[in-house]
Structure formats: structure tokens, C-alpha cells
């Protein structure tokens, strides 16, 4: 087929015209992307490199996947604290043209924006009072927008000044983890033309059973992190109390994920990136069930002291320790005047008190082991007058008072009757050096070295230890005061450690963390057992005396409680052993100055003949009314010990419980009959 000249011209014209299009595009591209590349204004003033990488950077984004803070579990795996995945929502807010007309329109725009965001945040169906939550969110967001854009500085009417901020970023909410809220925020993001929401990965700290673990587990506070110019960069979790301060809980290396964005900030998938490191695990010694029981019993007892709130104890502490390992199974704290447990002292660790008579078994064990105390020797503990006083010649005639007339008693009898006169006479066997060692052996001045901050360590009154004080004067005043639990202050956990040492015959330490797991590697915390201090004979003698404290014997300080429990159907004789303490002292209370206080305390262990659990209970009352350890501190401790025994029986595997359920075979006394349905 021959092509005519005219056709050829037409074809050339058409293809020539078509060829102009790519030539024009090529030229334009060269002008914009190559020749003018250095003239584009960049925030950092740098020229854009003519490379594919420079182009890729424009649409590449990276999101940080923060690692979770470690989890705290109780000894049976129940969670006490853990990080839950959540989003931190930030909004990049710009002002649309319609709002720039005048100041009134601008204010209305921000109010509507705050309202829309508040609506989205209230989509949580689990909210108890949605209207209140919405109002709260609205108020907060309106305030944040006002601060970010300096809306307060806007004129009341007229055009918006040129100096007004046109784009700002605000924090909308942290810890957003509810699906309906996330979806509502995403829907808002898709519909809003002047707001760009950034959902950044975050974690929300969760504490199941919070009310009973405040002081023990502690808490984490979000502290703002700012740069040198004072600009808020974000928040950093900082633990200031309880087990939360264990360093192994700190988050590990964060992960990272890349994605792409287009000019409208739409996100495009490029991969899942690399995950953050696994959170660590701290396995505490706490038994959540016993912790709840301890909190419940302590609160019930504190409330039962008086119907009048002002006459209730000022504070209370109760704890339970496993004797074999020194594990703290429960540590409950109670306060009268504190509105929120977060700000309150954790009493077992931070409240000091003069222990009173509960130190007598410690003294007698020490004197028997180190100062030739003859256990069978009879001491004349008779007293005179209505206040049962006696000027004890062994300590230079210091006047000591008893609660009741005692007569002649052996060491066993002194402990059972809790005779102060007898205790001072036994205490006179200790020299000043002996007393220093006594305090050292029981750790009454030593830190507990538990992984918790802000411990208030026990201490002694320094006056008695001044170099100028002679031995007789020390014995008369300081030594005799120590013998009956005065002139030194301890916290409840220190007292538990002292009894742990006495009952096991070795220097012992308490344990609050059983194991730590970091990067899949488990590190067990060893049971700390020091050198031997007391022979089995010494321990046996003291233990037998403490068993008789909880008997029907005339003068036994625990006899009223034994009778009260018997009425309720529980026989404590032979099952519970312990020592009651009642001390009168003075303490400084914020806002009240120095006031007289009464400390009711009790240390008990169970079973009496082969102790497995040790409980300490202290209640401090700030008035002069009679407040005995046997009546107020002992019952909740006894109930907690009984609960521990019941729980142990219930948790025992079925086969084990069948064996122990044979009457008389388990050696567990009256509890065996009660727990016949073991293994449930």
C-alpha cells in the first residue's frame, strides 16, 4: 500500500504532536527536579540530594513500638501488676480557612473540635457515667487546645491576628485500649479535614486487686520529659514505691515498624517490623489470697475497735511470713486519716513503734543462749501497790510495773504472764556489749534490704549509748527499758525478721521476690540463712512458753482470746503460740504535735509445735484508753494464721489431702477435721 505525500505529512504532524507531550513532561521534570532542586526551602536549610533515597525519605515513616514494663506476679501466678497495650493519641491540629475568618469562628471551631474528640473518647460502653466522662474529656481537651493555640490571647471579636498559631500538636489521651474508642477516633480522623490523629503505641499499667496491694506493689508515675527549651517530649514511667521499683521491671529495647504515607498522610503497609523485647517478670513471694485475707482482717479489726471514727486506731499493720523460706506472704496496711492509700505510708515497712512485751521471747532466747540464763531458776516477781510496782534491785532499783500481781516465776512463767519485773531481772544478765549484739542478731537496727524504697529503719534511743554512760546506769535505764520493749522502735517487718531468727535458730532475712525472669532467663532468689545463733533446746524452751501464752492458764495473756475463739468453735490451745504486747509511748503526729499513743501488738505462729507460718499484727491508737495486744492485735493475726492453714490444706493435691485427712495422722490438730473436703 502506497502512502501519499499528503498522508505522510499528516502522519508526521500527528506523531510529532504526540512526541511533544513526553518532551514537555521530560523538560518540566528536569526543570523542577534537577535544575531547581537546590532552591527548594527545607526546614533544616539542606539541599535535597538527587537520589532515589531522598525521594523515598519523603514518604517513609517509622513508628516506635515501646517495650512493656515487667509484670509482677504473686507466688501462684496471679497478676499483681502488668502493662497492657494501649495507644497514646496525639492530634496535629491545623486551622481551616472557614475558622480563620474571625476570632469568634476560631473559638467555635476549637470548641466543636474538643466536643467531637470528647464524644469519640466516650464510646466506651463500660463507662458508668458517660455524660460525666464526656464533660471531663471536653473540659480537658478544650483547655489543652486553648493552651496550645493561646486562644486566651485572641481578641474577643474581629479578624484573627497574623501571629496566631496555625498548626499545633496536642495530647488527646493516653492509655486508649477500648476497641470502640479506637474505632471512633479512627472514624473521626478519616472525617476531619483539619486534624490528623497519631495513634502511637503505648502501655497502660494495670493493677488487679489494687486496693489490697497499694503499699506492697507500689505504683508508677508518669513524669513529663522535656528538652532544654522546655518543650514536652513525652512521658516517662517512674516507680517511686513498692515492688514497682525493682530495676528488672524496666522496659527492654523497643521495637520499630516502618510504613509509608502519601501527601494526605494515608498510611501504607510495608511490613510488621521487629517486635520489642519481651517484658521481664518479677515473681513475688506474696500470696494474693492471703494478702486479701490480711487486709480484710486488719480492716475489720480496726473498724471493730470503736464505732467512733476518731477513737479507731491511728494505723495498723499485719503480715504473714512463711518460716521455712522467710517469704512474706501477706503485708497489709491500714490508716485512719488517709483519704487515698496511694499517699499513705506502707505501715509494715514505714511505721515505727515501740514493740513492748513482744520482745521478751527474743530477750529470753538470747539470754539463754549467751548469758547463762537458767531456765528453771525462780525469779521473785512480786509487786506492791495498786500499780503492781517493784524497785528491781538487779538494775539499781529502777521502778518497774506489772499489769497484774505475779509472785515467784520461772522464765517460762515470766513469758506466760508477761511479767515486766521478771523480764527486767532476766535483762540484767546482759551487759552493754550483749545488748549491742542482741540488737545486731535480731536486726532491730538493720535495714530489711527488701527491694522497696523508703524503708523506715528501726532505731534505738541514742542517749543510752553515749560514751559517758557507765555500765550500771546503762543497765538501770537503757537495758531495763530494752527488756520490756521500750527505748527502741521497729517496724512490723523487722519484728517478723527477729522472730524468724529466734524460731529457726539461725540469722534469717525476709524475702519478697522469689525469682526474676529477664529475656527468658529465670534467676531464683536464694533463701537467706545466716550463722546459727540459738540451739534447738533454746528454741524449744521459748516455743513451749509461747505455746502456753495461748492457753487457759491463770495469768496467761492469751487466755481471753483462747476463750473467745472457743466460743466460735475454734480451739487454739496447742495450735497457736505467740506473744502479746502492749506499749504506751509518745509519738509526733503531723498537725497534732507530740501525743501519747498505745501500741497493741501480737506475734504468733502456727502450728505451735512445728511452726510453718508467722504472723505479726500491730495497731496504734492515739489516746490513753486501755488497748491490749491480746484483745486487739491477737485476734486478727490468729484468724490470718488459721486462714493460711486452711488455704494450704485446700491447695494440697487430692492424694496428699487424702493421706493427711486420716485423723491423727497429719499432726495438724483441730484443722484436719475442718478441712475434710480438701483438694477442691
Amino acid at each position: 500500500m502506497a502512502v501519499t505525500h499528503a498522508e505522510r505529512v499528516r502522519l508526521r504532524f500527528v506523531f510529532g504532536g504526540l512526541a511533544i507531550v513526553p518532551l514537555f513532561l521530560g523538560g518540566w521534570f528536569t526543570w523542577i527536579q534537577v535544575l531547581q532542586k537546590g532552591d527548594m526551602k527545607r526546614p533544616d536549610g539542606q539541599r535535597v540530594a538527587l537520589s532515589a533515597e531522598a525521594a523515598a525519605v519523603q514518604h517513609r515513616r517509622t513508628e516506635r513500638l515501646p517495650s512493656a514494663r515487667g509484670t509482677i506476679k504473686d507466688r501462684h501466678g496471679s497478676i499483681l501488676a502488668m502493662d497492657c497495650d494501649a495507644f497514646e493519641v496525639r492530634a496535629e491540629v491545623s486551622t481551616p480557612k472557614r475558622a480563620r475568618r474571625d476570632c469568634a469562628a476560631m473559638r467555635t471551631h476549637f470548641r466543636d473540635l474538643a466536643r467531637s474528640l470528647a464524644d469519640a473518647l466516650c464510646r466506651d460502653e463500660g463507662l458508668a457515667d458517660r455524660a460525666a466522662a464526656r464533660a471531663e474529656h471536653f473540659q480537658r481537651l478544650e483547655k489543652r487546645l486553648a493552651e496550645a493555640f493561646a486562644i486566651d490571647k485572641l481578641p474577643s471579636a474581629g479578624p484573627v491576628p497574623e501571629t496566631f498559631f496555625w498548626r499545633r500538636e496536642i495530647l488527646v489521651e493516653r492509655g486508649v485500649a477500648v476497641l470502640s474508642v479506637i474505632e471512633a477516633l479512627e472514624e473521626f480522623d478519616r472525617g476531619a479535614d483539619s486534624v490528623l490523629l497519631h495513634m502511637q503505641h503505648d502501655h497502660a499499667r494495670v493493677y488487679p486487686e489494687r486496693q489490697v496491694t497499694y503499699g506492697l506493689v507500689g505504683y508508677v508515675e508518669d513524669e513529663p520529659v522535656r528538652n532544654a527549651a522546655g518543650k514536652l517530649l513525652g512521658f516517662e514511667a517512674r516507680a517511686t514505691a513498692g515492688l514497682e521499683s525493682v530495676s528488672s521491671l524496666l522496659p527492654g529495647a523497643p521495637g520499630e515498624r516502618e510504613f509509608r504515607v502519601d501527601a494526605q498522610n494515608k498510611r501504607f503497609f510495608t511490613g510488621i517490623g521487629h517486635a520489642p523485647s519481651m517484658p521481664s517478670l518479677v515473681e513475688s513471694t506474696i500470696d494474693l489470697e492471703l494478702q486479701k485475707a490480711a487486709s480484710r482482717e486488719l480492716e475489720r479489726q480496726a473498724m471493730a475497735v470503736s464505732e467512733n471514727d476518731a477513737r479507731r486506731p491511728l494505723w495498723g499493720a499485719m503480715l504473714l511470713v512463711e518460716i521455712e523460706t522467710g517469704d512474706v506472704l501477706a503485708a497489709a496496711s491500714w490508716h485512719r486519716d488517709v483519704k487515698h492509700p496511694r499517699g499513705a505510708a506502707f505501715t509494715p515497712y514505714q511505721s515505727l513503734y515501740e514493740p513492748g512485751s513482744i520482745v521478751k521471747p527474743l530477750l529470753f532466747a538470747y539470754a539463754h543462749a549467751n548469758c547463762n540464763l537458767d531456765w528453771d531458776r525462780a525469779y521473785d516477781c512480786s509487786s506492791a501497790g495498786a500499780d503492781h510496782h517493784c524497785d528491781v534491785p538487779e538494775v539499781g532499783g529502777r521502778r518497774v510495773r506489772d499489769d497484774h500481781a505475779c509472785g515467784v516465776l520461772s522464765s517460762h512463767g515470766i513469758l506466760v504472764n508477761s511479767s515486766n519485773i521478771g523480764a527486767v531481772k532476766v535483762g540484767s544478765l546482759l551487759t552493754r556489749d550483749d545488748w549491742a549484739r542482741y540488737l545486731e542478731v535480731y536486726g532491730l537496727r538493720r535495714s530489711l534490704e527488701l527491694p522497696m524504697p523508703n524503708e523506715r529503719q528501726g532505731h534505738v534511743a541514742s542517749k543510752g549509748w553515749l560514751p559517758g554512760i557507765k555500765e550500771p546506769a546503762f543497765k538501770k535505764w537503757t537495758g531495763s527499758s530494752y527488756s520490756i520493749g521500750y527505748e527502741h522502735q521497729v517496724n512490723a517487718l523487722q519484728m517478723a525478721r527477729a522472730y524468724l531468727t529466734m524460731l529457726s535458730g539461725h540469722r534469717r532475712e525476709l524475702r519478697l521476690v522469689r525469682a526474676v525472669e529477664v529475656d527468658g532467663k529465670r534467676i531464683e532468689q536464694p533463701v537467706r540463712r545466716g550463722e546459727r545463733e540459738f540451739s534447738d533446746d533454746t528454741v524449744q524452751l521459748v516455743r513451749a512458753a509461747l505455746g502456753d501464752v495461748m492457753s487457759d492458764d491463770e495469768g496467761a495473756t492469751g487466755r481471753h482470746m483462747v476463750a473467745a475463739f472457743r466460743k466460735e468453735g475454734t480451739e487454739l490451745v496447742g495450735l497457736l503460740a505467740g506473744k502479746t504486747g502492749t506499749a504506751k509511748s509518745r509519738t509526733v503526729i503531723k498537725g497534732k504535735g507530740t501525743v501519747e499513743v498505745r501500741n497493741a501488738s501480737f506475734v504468733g505462729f502456727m502450728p505451735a509445735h512445728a511452726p510453718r507460718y508467722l504472723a505479726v499484727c500491730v495497731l496504734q491508737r492515739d489516746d490513753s484508753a486501755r488497748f491490749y495486744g491480746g484483745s486487739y492485735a491477737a485476734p486478727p493475726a490468729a484468724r490470718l494464721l488459721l486462714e493460711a492453714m486452711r488455704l494450704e490444706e485446700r491447695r494440697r493435691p487430692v492424694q496428699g489431702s487424702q493421706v493427711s485427712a486420716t485423723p491423727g495422722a497429719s499432726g495438724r490438730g483441730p484443722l484436719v477435721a475442718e478441712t475434710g473436703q480438701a483438694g477442691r
Partner: protein
Amino acid sequence: MKWVLCGITFALSVVLAVGTASYRAGNAKLRLQLEREYRSIEARMIEVRRLSLRTAELATPERLCDRLRDALKGSKAPQQESALWQ
């Protein structure tokens, strides 16, 4: 003839360019969808973890006891009636 071949080549290159662009656009659309799916799965995983923790919290012995007590309160009257009948 050579002009025809030129035209066909041009048309092919245009088809190739449009095809590549549409392929890339389809790819980008898929990436967009994938990202949305990814975000939505992520949100659901967060929700599952939150709900499982909440369920565990609600199933403590004390709360289960309370619920059992409430349930028994409701069934107390019929039980008494049946006891009388027996």
C-alpha cells in the same frame, strides 16, 4: 510502514506506562487496605488482652462468691416452698 511501527511502539509504551501505573496504583491500594487491616487487628488484639484481664479480675473468689450469694438470694423462696412440700 516505519511510521506505523513507530505508532504501534508508542502505543505499546503508553499501554505499558498506563499498565505499570495502574498496577502500582493497585499495589498501593492493597497496601492501604493491608495497613487498615493491620491497624484493625492490632486494635482487636489490644481489646482481647484488655477484656481477658478484665474477665480475670471479675472472676476472683470474692466476686464469684458475691454473685453466687446474689443468685442464691433469688432462689431462696422456691427452696423454702419445696422444703415445706417435702
